[in-house]
């Protein structure tokens, strides 16, 4: 990372923390500032803090897992009355939101037993304090360490999506949950029936489905409905931007961020895909585009060496043949083409929302950009030319100060209720195997 990028990163971090502090300060009492700052840092990023790791004088500020503070929230209210800047939450007529369904869905979301070998819950990739994504790797890793080829997308504001996954292959949250349950490189359950049988065999779930679904037990449908209900409440907005733009508060974002918004909707043309409307903004057009990044990943040639960090301040250049010797076969990623098989859809990926984007690094469908600065630089250069490049992508000629302005704007999109959502997640029980749970070595065995 060059000096400029470092500077931007440090500024980004400071901005995120300062925004976060201002959000927390509403409820924090004087005299407990230290505790509140710690909780704040626990909520806005990995507690295993690595800022400055590139430097030899890197100093840890590691948070302690045992000190996390959970606090349950009235999650249903974030769906009934979405925070400022979000439209009404679309709720399917056949799956109305109830608190029982939401809490059941939350329990399922954090249950590591819902995988073939009891190691993976949804939350092992969608980590609450890491923007409900994973800040610590570019692309996901699933059961038995099997490689995913895509970056874990955040689940903030997924209630509004009509196209789900980076390739847009799924249409409802109720259906979506079964893909990770069954994907061999995610939770790797061998069948739908296996998941249902396992839930039935775990005592903690006794009666919970029946109470939430008018007597219906765990089924493919009710499991999807419960998980969708929880995710439908994870709406994070009322950000400083929302308070300024929709709330008409004057001084909640900086002049630099305001200039950044002008660029976002003007010279930068970002809002052509990341939509901002008069009453609300989802910051996505819910469509798929070819930016050239996928094309490059599929078609580029070996560059010879890779710079690898070994310790704080210690790097080496490793020959790619060395890396190849310990690499398993890497799957290409052709985006929407993998759904439609239309060659014109090669390397098209879904436009992500930019809400809370400062919390969801690394970026792009393959996590290859680690900072927002890298993302802005990519679009400023006009993406990567290829015959299917979206006509919306072109060089932007943004100046250095304009890039800084744009970054300041992007930092202003963290929802004010993020602390509440993360603290609620911290309060959720994590499902790990007990002696009463099903296992072939226990009395409680799944019946097959």
């Amino acid at each position, binding site marked *: 990372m060059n000096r400029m990028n470092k500077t931007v990163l440090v500024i980004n971090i400071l901005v995120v923390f300062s925004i976060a502090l201002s959000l927390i300060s509403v409820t924090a009492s004087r005299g407990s500032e230290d505790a509140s700052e*710690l909780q704040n840092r626990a909520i806005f990023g*990995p*507690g*295993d803090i*690595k800022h400055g790791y590139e430097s030899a*004088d*890197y*100093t*840890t*500020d*590691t*948070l*302690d*897992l*045992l*000190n*996390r503070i959970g606090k349950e929230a009235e999650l249903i209210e974030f769906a009934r009355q979405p925070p400022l800047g979000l439209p009404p939450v679309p709720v399917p007529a056949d799956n109305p939101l109830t608190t029982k369904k939401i809490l059941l869905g939350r329990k399922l979301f954090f249950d*590591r037993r819902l995988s073939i*070998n*009891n190691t993976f819950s949804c939350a*092992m990739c969608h*980590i609450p*304090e*890491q923007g409900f994504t994973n*800040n*610590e*790797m*570019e*692309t996901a*890793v699933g059961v*038995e*360490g099997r*490689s995913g080829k895509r970056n874990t997308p955040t689940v903030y504001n997924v209630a509004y999506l009509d196209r789900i996954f980076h390739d847009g292959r799924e249409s409802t949250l109720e259906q979506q949950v079964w893909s990770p349950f069954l994907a061999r490189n995610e939770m790797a359950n061998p069948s739908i029936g296996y998941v249902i049988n396992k839930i039935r065999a775990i005592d903690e779930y006794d009666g919970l489905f029946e109470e939430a679904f008018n007597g219906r037990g765990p089924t493919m449908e009710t499991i999807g409905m419960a998980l969708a209900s929880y995710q439908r409440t994870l709406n994070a907005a009322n950000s400083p931007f929302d308070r300024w733009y929709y709330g008409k508060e004057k001084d909640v974002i900086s002049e630099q961020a305001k200039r950044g918004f002008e660029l976002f909707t003007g010279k930068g043309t970002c809002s052509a895909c990341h939509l901002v409307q008069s009453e609300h903004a989802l910051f996505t057009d819910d469509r798929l585009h070819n930016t050239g990044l996928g094309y490059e990943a599929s078609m580029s040639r070996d560059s010879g060496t*890779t710079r*690898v*960090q*070994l*310790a*704080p301040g*210690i790097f*080496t250049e*490793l020959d790619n043949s*060395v*890396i*190849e*010797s*310990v*690499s*398993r076969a890497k799957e290409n990623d052709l985006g929407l083409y993998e759904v439609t098989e239309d060659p014109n859809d090669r390397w098209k990926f879904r436009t992500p929302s930019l809400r809370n984007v400062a919390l969801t690094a*690394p970026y792009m469908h393959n*996590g290859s950009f*680690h900072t927002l600065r890298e993302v802005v630089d990519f679009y400023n250069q006009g993406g990567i030319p290829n015959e299917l490049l979206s006509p919306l992508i072109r060089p932007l000629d943004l100046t250095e100060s304009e890039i800084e302005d744009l970054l300041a704007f992007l930092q202003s999109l963290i929802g004010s209720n993020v602390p509440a959502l993360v603290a609620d997640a911290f309060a959720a029980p*994590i499902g*790990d*195997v*007990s*002696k009463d749970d099903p*296992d*072939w*070595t226990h009395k409680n065995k799944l019946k097959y």
Partner: protein
Amino acid sequence: MKKMSKLHARWIQGSIASLCVLLASVVGFQSAAIADETCMSPYMAKIVGQEDYVYIWTLGKEGVGDGQDKLVTVSVNPESKYYGKVVNSLSVGGRNEAHHSGLTDDRRYLFAGGLDTNKIFIFDVHSNPSKPSLHKVITDFVEKTGGMVGPHTMYALPGRIMVSALSNNKDHGGRTGLAEFTNEGEFVAAHWMPTDEDMRGAVKVGNIADGYGYDVRVLPRRNVMVTSSFTGWSNYMMDFGKMLADPEAMKRFGNTVVVWDLHTRQPKKVFEVPGSPLEIRCAWGSQNNYCFTTTALTSKIWLIYEDGAGEWHAAAVGDIGDPSQVPLPVDISITADDKGLWVQTFMDGKTRYFDVSDPHNPKQTYEHVVGSQVNMTSQSWDGKRMYFTSSLLGNWDKTGDQDEQFFKLFEWDGEKLVEKFAIDFYAENLGRPHQMRFGAYSLYGQKPNSKDTLLSQLME
């Protein structure tokens, strides 16, 4: 426990003082012949003669045999008609990321951990040393420990097994701790690693207190326990090549060694040891108040030592190969006389012998290519027999033609290694051999069982 032969001793129970007296008086503490596999707990019963079996904790591999983890027993006594052959294989279900194992102090049970599934398999190795049986499975390690993931080192303390974990159930990162179990596998206590937010009474000597874990070793004479630091589940389960190319992932390695008060389990000092210090080997000599560790990524030998004033320090004392090429030192093994340190470097498949007579100034005096990749080693107490296995981690092992998976025995005459036999674990449809532990009839007052059979005969 059954009556023991005069060929072995047992040191358990009692205070540090009485232990030292016992060691010094019974076996002559300054002599070389006090250790068996030289890297084991000083509380453990010893094999001081010829080992009969090596128990190899083996990773299952999809497409190889039954594809699941197993404990493989190989006959290694030259007197046996099955010398150099697999005599038993006990499959345990699943690919748990079989990794390290450790014997109880009385050497009756072998605890073997799964870094992925967090199961700990407890094998009975005393009832029939040629044919271990599955005695018990700990399945609730994560729940009992309050969220630790990745049971790694299984280390014998008096009546206890200390388990060092690698990760946690909240972010699959490196923050973790130690967990203590009875020899019967009942959970006793969790000891989380010190972090900046909660140093748990320890002093941060350098800039780093990352809360990561890996190995654990003790120096009872000094009431000292030492731990090292590797990486969390996300990395150790990740494809190695994918991880090397991911700058975010490469930030998630441990850079610390912690010195603890052994009796109180209180961390005392957190040392900055950059580049993932892995195995720890403590010296045996009564005046040798130090331990070695090696850093996987930065390829250095570090000395953790006590000065004349009783203060503990950490110092880098030597390079291993060319650190810029990341030879990746993995397992290490100290000789019983504290004069030598074997270091395996995974990437070039070498074992390297360092003269550590002056522990502050190690000198490499010998190297030998064991295979296309090499990881673990176990040496007999007299240092004459060196056993090697090839596998590092399921998704870190080499690929293609370089993915050799073997168990090999070499003899060491002080100048060179000579191969005695090798078993191809893929050809045998077994999997990927990892850690080795020795077994012997003499430990239990037994003799070879006439009913012993060769596994291959059973399979015919």
